[in-house]
């Protein structure tokens, strides 16, 4: 972000950067920057809080009046705790997954889990008027079929044309995570903490278990890009630290 500020300003365009990692901004010294104390992924602080977001944006824009840079200002306003359950006591997904009927394959368990979450993901989509699921262009059931098959056999090819296997793997596994995230955050009692969704997904869901299996499978692949994505771009660091991966 800081580099882009240097390049544009050098060409005569006034810039101001929002900074999430203060250390990087200190090192790269863009012309104007506002450091904000928010979670990565939330540079404006709080979703669906226009008043809060406007305060951040106005603080950043106000720096444009300065010509005595480099200037790095700290934005003092922390993001508020947002709901009961945001006090660090965690969130429990209120949807209990039905017990399997007899011996069940991992693929069937995944499909059953997805079926129980579909009403919540649909509710999220209806409320928001949009969804972030669908980067692969496949239905969530087709995504589930691929993930379960790959978890069992790394020779399984993704059902996407025109992209590399590694790119397809990334889009499909991103879709699966986005579906679960949207379903989780639509449920009553969810306090809006992203870490709660992460813990639930990687500790308690069949989808999380199968993605961990995919990660192990991909390590046996001869495709170095696929291995890189599986090792580095599949399981978040927060979850890897907890799972000791």
């Amino acid at each position: 972000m800081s580099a882009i500020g240097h390049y544009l300003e050098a060409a005569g365009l006034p810039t101001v950067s929002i900074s999430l990692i203060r250390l990087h901004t200190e090192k790269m010294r863009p012309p104007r920057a506002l450091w904000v104390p928010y979670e990565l992924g939330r540079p404006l602080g709080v979703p669906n809080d226009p008043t809060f977001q406007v305060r951040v944006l106005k603080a950043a824009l106000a720096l444009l009046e300065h010509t005595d840079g480099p200037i790095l200002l700290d934005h003092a306003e922390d993001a508020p705790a947002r709901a009961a359950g945001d006090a660090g006591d965690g969130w429990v997904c209120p949807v209990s997954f039905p017990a399997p009927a007899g011996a069940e394959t991992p693929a069937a368990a995944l499909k059953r889990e997805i079926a129980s979450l579909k009403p919540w993901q649909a509710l999220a989509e209806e409320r928001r008027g949009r969804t972030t699921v669908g980067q692969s262009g496949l239905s969530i059931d087709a995504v589930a079929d691929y993930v379960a098959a790959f978890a069992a056999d790394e020779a399984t090819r993704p059902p996407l044309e025109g992209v590399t296997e590694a790119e397809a793997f990334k889009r499909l596994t991103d879709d699966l995570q986005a579906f679960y995230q949207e379903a989780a955050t639509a449920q009553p009692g969810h306090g809006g903490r992203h870490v709660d969704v992460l813990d639930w997904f990687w500790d308690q869901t069949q989808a999380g278990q199968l993605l961990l299996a995919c990660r192990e499978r991909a390590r046996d692949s001869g495709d170095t890009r696929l291995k890189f994505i599986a090792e580095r771009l599949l399981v978040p660091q927060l979850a890897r630290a907890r799972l000791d991966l």
Partner: protein
Amino acid sequence: MARIEDLPPAFAEHLINLPCAEMGETPCVAGPPLARRRVAIVSTAGLGRKSEGGFNPGDADYRVIPANLPAGDLTMSHISVNYDRTGFQEDINIAFPIDRLRELAAAGEIGSVADYHYSFMGATDPTEMKAAVESLIGPLKADDVDAVVLIPV
């Protein structure tokens, strides 16, 4: 939360050790009062139109986001999984505050909102984006932009 000391040690160490290019200082360009400025967003969140392909590791190019793009047609394909996406799922303005800019323009606090906004994918070494950033200068100036808000994710 974006305080490095609050992050998992392995991720914090990665961020601390991430090479940051020495870029010296670039003099600040002056402009008209904020109330007369035309503002564009340049994001590194890996945003783009759903109809386009997503970003892949190493991509140093950008996507164009028309100001009137419906929120449902905006997608985020940043390759990293080490940041929150649930905020963006709830509200695009958490990373792409286009509605907030419109409100500020309507209130007369900024002059206007640019017709076009842009996004890179921030996992790529930013010095590799130099040519792509410089290719944006013409379109930004042609859109009469004189204020760029740079927003990471």
